[in-house]
C-alpha cells in the first residue's frame, strides 16, 4: 500500500499507460519499430533483440506477481550537503529527475511476491541521474534490507547504476560502506540476497552492495565493471577487448553466477528463491 497516496508523482503506478508517440528507432539495428510493440516485448527490440532500458516501474511489473507490489520506499529526498553546483545546481538536477521519472530518487523498494514467494525487492532506475547512489539510494537499499530482515524473507536488488552520485561528494562514497554494513546483518539473519546486475552496474554500486549477492545474476546485455572503458583507455592507453565488461566478460572471469534473458528473469528468480524457502 503506498504510504504517500496524496502525492501522485511519488506513487508507483504499475498500470500507467506508456507514451504511445508511435515509432522509435532501435539504437542497435536502426530499424523503425512501433513503440507499443517494443513495450509489449519488455523493451526488447522486436527486430533485433536489443535490450532497451526498463524504468524501475516497468522492471517491477516484469519481475513480481501482478498486484503483489507494495511500495515501502522511504519518504525521503536528496539533500544538498555540499551546496553543489556544476553546470546546474544539484537540487535543480534532482527536481528535474523527479519530474521526468515520477520517482523520488533512483530506486524503488517494495514488498512483493515472485511466483508466490515473498521478497523485498529494490529496483534502480537509470534515468534518475544515471541511477547514481547518493544518500537517498544508500538509505533505501538499507531500508529494503532491514524490511527483509523484519519479514524474514529474501532481498533482491536489481542494479542499474553508473556508480556514486558525484554531487554528494564523500557522502556518496560512504554509501558503499553503509550498504555493505547493512548487508552483513542480512547474512547474520541467514536470509538470502540475490543481486541482479543490468545495464549498467558499475562504479561504486558494483564495488559494494551489488557484488555481495549470495548469488549474482546478470541480465543479458548487462555492463558490469568498476572503472569505465573511457577512463581506462585514457588513464592506461590500453587496448580493450570488444566484449570488455560485457555479461560474457564478467561470466568468463568468474564475477557472476549466471546470465539470463529478460524474459526468463522472473522464473529464474523463482527457481533460485525456492531453494531458500525450502531450507527454512
Amino acid at each position, binding site marked *: 500500500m503506498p504510504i504517500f497516496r496524496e502525492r501522485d508523482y511519488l506513487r508507483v503506478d504499475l498500470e500507467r499507460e506508456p507514451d504511445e508517440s508511435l515509432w522509435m528507432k532501435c539504437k542497435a539495428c536502426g530499424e523503425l519499430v512501433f513503440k507499443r510493440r517494443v513495450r509489449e516485448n519488455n523493451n526488447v527490440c522486436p527486430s533485433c533483440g536489443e535490450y532497451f532500458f526498463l524504468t524501475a516501474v516497468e522492471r517491477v511489473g516484469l519481475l513480481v506477481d501482478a498486484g503483489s507490489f507494495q511500495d515501502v520506499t522511504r519518504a525521503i529526498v*536528496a539533500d544538498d550537503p*555540499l551546496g553543489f553546483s556544476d553546470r546546474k545546481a544539484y537540487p535543480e538536477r534532482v527536481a528535474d529527475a523527479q519530474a521526468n521519472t515520477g520517482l*523520488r530518487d533512483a530506486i524503488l523498494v517494495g514488498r512483493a511476491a515472485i511466483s508466490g514467494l515473498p521478497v523485498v525487492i529494490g529496483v534502480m532506475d537509470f534515468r534518475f541521474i544515471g541511477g547514481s547512489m547518493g544518500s537517498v539510494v544508500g538509505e533505501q537499499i538499507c531500508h529494503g534490507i532491514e524490511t527483509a530482515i523484519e519479514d524474514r524473507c529474501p532481498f533482491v536488488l536489481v542494479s542499474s547504476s553508473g556508480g556514486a552520485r558525484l554531487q554528494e*561528494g564523500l557522502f556518496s562514497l560512504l554509501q558503499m560502506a553503509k550498504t555493505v554494513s547493512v548487508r552483513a546483518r542480512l547474512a547474520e539473519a541467514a536470509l538470502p540476497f540475490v543481486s541482479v546486475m543490468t545495464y549498467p552496474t*558499475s562504479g561504486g554500486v558494483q564495488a559494494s552492495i551489488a557484488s555481495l549477492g549470495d548469488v549474482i545474476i546478470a541480465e543479458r546485455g548487462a555492463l558490469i565493471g568498476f572503472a569505465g572503458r573511457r577512463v581506462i583507455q585514457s588513464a592506461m592507453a590500453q587496448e580493450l577487448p570488444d566484449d570488455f565488461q560485457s555479461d560474457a566478460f564478467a561470466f568468463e*572471469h568468474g564475477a557472476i553466477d549466471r546470465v539470463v534473458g529478460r524474459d526468463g528473469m522472473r522464473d529464474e528468480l523463482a527457481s533460485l528463491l525456492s531453494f531458500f524457502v525450502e531450507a527454512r
Partner: protein
Amino acid sequence: MSDEQTLDLLEAKIEELRHLDATDGIDLSKEIEKLETKLEELRHELYANLGDWERVRLARHPKRPYALDYIDAVFTDFYELHGDRIGGDDRALVAGLARLDGRPVAIVGQQKGRSTAENKERFFGMPRPQGYRKGQRAMRLAERFGFPVITLIDTPGAYPGLESEESNIGGAIAESLATMVGLRVPIVAVVIGEGGSGGALAIGLADRVLMLENAIYTVISPESAAVILWKEKERMKDAAEALNLTADHLLELGLIDGVIPEPLGGAHKDFDRTAAALKEELAARLDELAAIEPDTLLDVRYRRYREVGRYRDASPESE
C-alpha cells in the same frame, strides 16, 4: 619559477649565509635574521590560506612522504607480508605487522613509487584485486591475534586496467569493505595523501578516520569531475572546491574524526614533525579503542556507517 621554488631558493640562500657566517667569521646574523623573517612571511602568505586545489597539489606533491616512510618513522620492526595466496603480490599495497611503542599492530597501506622504476613496480599506488586481497589477509591475521589494524590511505584510485577488471576489482573492493565491517579488532584509517574514490575507501572503513592536514579524500578526482560534470577539463579547480575534499571541510561535515597538523608548506617540509604528530595521534586513538569490548566496538562501527548520509524528509506531514 613557482612560489615553492622561490621559497626553496630563499632557504638555500640563508643556508649559504649561515655557512659563510660560521666559516669566515663575518657576522651576518642580522642579514640572516632578516631573510628568515622574510621567508616565514612568504611561507605564511603562501600556505596559511591554501585553496582546495592547492591542497590537491600538496596531497600529490612528489616529495610527499608515502606509507613506507611513515611505517619506518612511526613504527618499529615492520614485518612485511606478501601475496594474496591466489595469483600474485601487488606492490601498490603494502601489508604487514609492526609495533607502535611496543604494541603489535597490523598495517595496510597504499604505496606510491618515487621514481619511474618504483612506479612501474608500485603502479602509482593503485592496487589491483590481489592487493586488496592481501590487505584482507593481514586484517584477518590481526583479528585472530587481537592486534588493532592501522590503514594508511594514499592512492589516486584502484588500478583502472584490463587485468584489474578481469580479476573483478569491484568485487575485491566490496569484499574488503565486508571484511572491515565485521573485523573484531579496532581499525584506525589515516588518509596520508590522496584518498581517491573506492580504491581508497576499500581500506577506509574504520572506527576512527583521520586525515593529515593536506590530504584529500574524494569520490572522484577533480580532473575527472571537471570532465564529467562541467564538460570542461580546465575546471578542476572549481571541481576541487565543489567536492569538499579537504580535511577541514570533511571534519566540518562530520565525515572524519580528526585532522593531524602538518608543518607549513606540507608534510615533506618537516617529515620528522609530521611523523611524530601521526604517532601521537595513533597512540591516543588506539588507547581509546583498546578500552572498548569487541561487541560494543562492532555496534558503534555499525551505527556510524548505518547512519552516514544526508537527506530530507518528504513525508506529507512534514510539508
